[in-house]
């Protein structure tokens, strides 16, 4: 890799008060806001253009499984808490505690995906594919893209939990920063779900 020393990789910049990576992750999240913002706007536009929502009649809360959705919301919120605890463990200098909390975060993320799998397969079982109508199209695209973000988070968090944690021995501050950045991303993914759940399942 490049041997050029880039300033403020680990230490915060004296003016902005944060290192490069943290500014980078915030900017990335800004672009993610625009991505999901565009999708939510599309949802609003399509829904307001329909005489009834869902188009087949009934209520969203009858078509989608609200108890499972509620459970998943709780799972993700809990995983955000464990993520903060993982970062706090790094700050307090305990790698074993970090591993415990980070492991819990990854586990909860997997629980979320398993529940999502049951929800999806139930819809597919009833031949409710994205092509069925725009209600399902919106539902699958929004939750699918959110699911991909969850998968991305699992990959990053698993890396930090395993091979990435070697950095703890050489540069604990840099490692803690990485955990914090992964956490910022994870909270964002959590936040997206907190918007998705009521607007898809309840409204």
């Amino acid at each position, binding site marked *: 890799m490049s041997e050029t020393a880039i300033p403020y990789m680990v230490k915060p910049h004296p003016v902005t008060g944060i290192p490069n990576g943290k*500014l980078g992750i915030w900017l990335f999240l800004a672009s993610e806001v625009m991505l999901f913002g565009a999708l939510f706007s599309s949802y609003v536009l399509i829904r307001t253009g329909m005489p009834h929502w869902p188009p087949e009649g009934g209520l969203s809360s009858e078509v989608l499984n609200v108890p499972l959705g509620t459970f998943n919301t709780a799972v993700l919120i809990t995983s955000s808490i464990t993520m903060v605890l993982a970062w706090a463990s790094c700050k307090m200098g305990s790698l074993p505690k970090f591993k415990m909390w980070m492991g819990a975060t990854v586990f909860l993320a997997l629980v979320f995906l398993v529940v999502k799998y049951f929800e999806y397969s139930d819809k597919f079982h009833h031949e409710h*594919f994205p092509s069925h109508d725009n209600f399902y199209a919106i539902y699958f695209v929004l939750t699918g893209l959110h699911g991909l973000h969850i998968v991305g988070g699992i990959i990053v968090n698993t890396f930090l939990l395993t091979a990435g944690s070697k950095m703890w021995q050489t540069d604990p501050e840099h490692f803690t920063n990485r955990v914090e950045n992964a956490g910022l991303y994870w909270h964002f993914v959590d936040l997206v779900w907190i918007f998705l759940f009521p607007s898809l399942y309840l409204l």
Partner: protein
Amino acid sequence: MSVQHHNGGNGHGHAHDGHGHHELPFWRKYIFSVDHKMIGIQYGVTALAFLFFGFSLMMLMRWQLAYPGQPLPLLGKLLGETDMPGGVMAPEFYNQLGAMHGTIMVFLGVVPLAVGGFGNFVVPLQIGAPDMAFPRLNMVSYWVFLPGTLIMIASFFVPGGAAQSGWTSYPPLSDITGQGFFSGQTFWLFAMVLIITSSLLGSINFIVTIVQLRAKGLSFWRLPFFVHAQLVTAFLLLLAFPPLEAASVLQIMDRLAGTSFFLPSGLVVSGEPLKIAGGGNPLLWQHLFWFLAHPEVYVLILPAMGIVAEVIANNTRKPLWGYRLLVYSVVFLGFMSFVVWAHHMFMTGMGTTMSTFFQITTMIISIPSVIILTCFIMSLYGGNIRFTTPMLFATAFLPMFAIGGLTGLPLGLTASDIYLHDTFYVIGHFHYVVAPGTLFALFAGVYYWYPKATGRQMNDALGKVHFWLSFIAINFIFMPMFFQGMAGLSRRLYDPTIYAHGRGVQTLNVVISWGAWALAIAQLPFIVNFFMSLKKGARVAENPWHATTLEWAAPSPPGHGNFLTEPVVYREPYEYSVPGKPNDYSPQFRAEA
């Protein structure tokens, strides 16, 4: 990066001084390089190649437009019976060329050259940084971009050929042409997703680099105007591109999963009702597309303005007129570019309140553009101008961009837009902005920074031939388009002579086509110059133009890590001809000058 320090016992003796020259293997140095200069050159060369390719597509179309229905000599046979039966261009092929010309020029040519090329190469040097903030991310951004471009080109070879729905890919047409994964439009969408992702990664890198890695003493009010322009551009890329990514995902779903995001109920295609759920909205695509594509216009023009500012200050030997005004204007342009998108949609029947709003914002956004142009013209006043090749291109940018900008006003007013919409007038307007505007500025940039990138000067005589031939030819192409457009000639006609009002301006089509082919010939001196100067150009020291900004403190070409000693900035960027100083330039990086 820093990780490497800890397991660096590989005998290289790592260069902690930041400019070590231990040799990397070929593939690390030239292919999977993490050095911003090499990545900038990769982007630049790729983009130049695509500019010429996209231009070639247009030259083919110009044959059909000038001589509709006549067989194209020589080339017509080579392109095969599907696309050119009997040497005559098929309408489907014409549509493919049109859509791909626009897409390639914008997304594979101008943006990668202006942002990926010049941004990557120049910005870290101008701010005195050893590299971009995230060198590996920078490499990834290029290697996401390249597969995107390859998919885009590969789309010519799938059944049915490349995308045919114009560079804007308006549904329902784009949703229903070609079926399945192996179709031009689907390839177009996947390529766009990759290219957008690459831009996103790049823009994050630019912003972090400019905010965090400026050299000591380089406050925001001491940044060269080019860096300000790139910073605003990066924000546009960061915030405007995701909506098109979302839109592309939705269109991919429409095409592959059978959803109806952009397909309304009751759609009838070729007399058959389409078997879809319906309930979608084709206008949704237009909103999402133009929410990206209007800021995109400023992504095309702002880096060009940045280059022009650098070249003008350097060659007039005086400070830029109204430097702070320029910076305020460029930031204001950036903000405003997010609230003008629907002026592309006056004809969609979106309601007069909306139209009025976007008409007003469009008139407002023309103000900072005029301010910027005025500042540049004022900068020329009283200057001791050196008409070098880059300066010729930068000077020509001013009237060309002015024509492009002023002809845009009638398009921003709803009343006149109703008549001019989708005519050749529009083509003339935005090509004046992007071709003799942005592209001339980019050529100025190539001639200006070539010595920094290679350590050799490009030939000035060949450069002037390139400039004058291009300047004359390009006006023969785009000026007649205004007259065709005002005669009502529609922009996407395969055969312009099918309507009586088109036959009246058909002679102009012949003029335009010969202009286009002449412009191609005018590029030969540039191509020869570009490659010949690599070996034969006059060697230069670090500051051949006697410039003041930081990139000229580094060796030409700069080694890994860029600067021999850590640069410190002492003054504002354009201190030329300061009274009482022995030289007519006082570089930012010299304590006493």
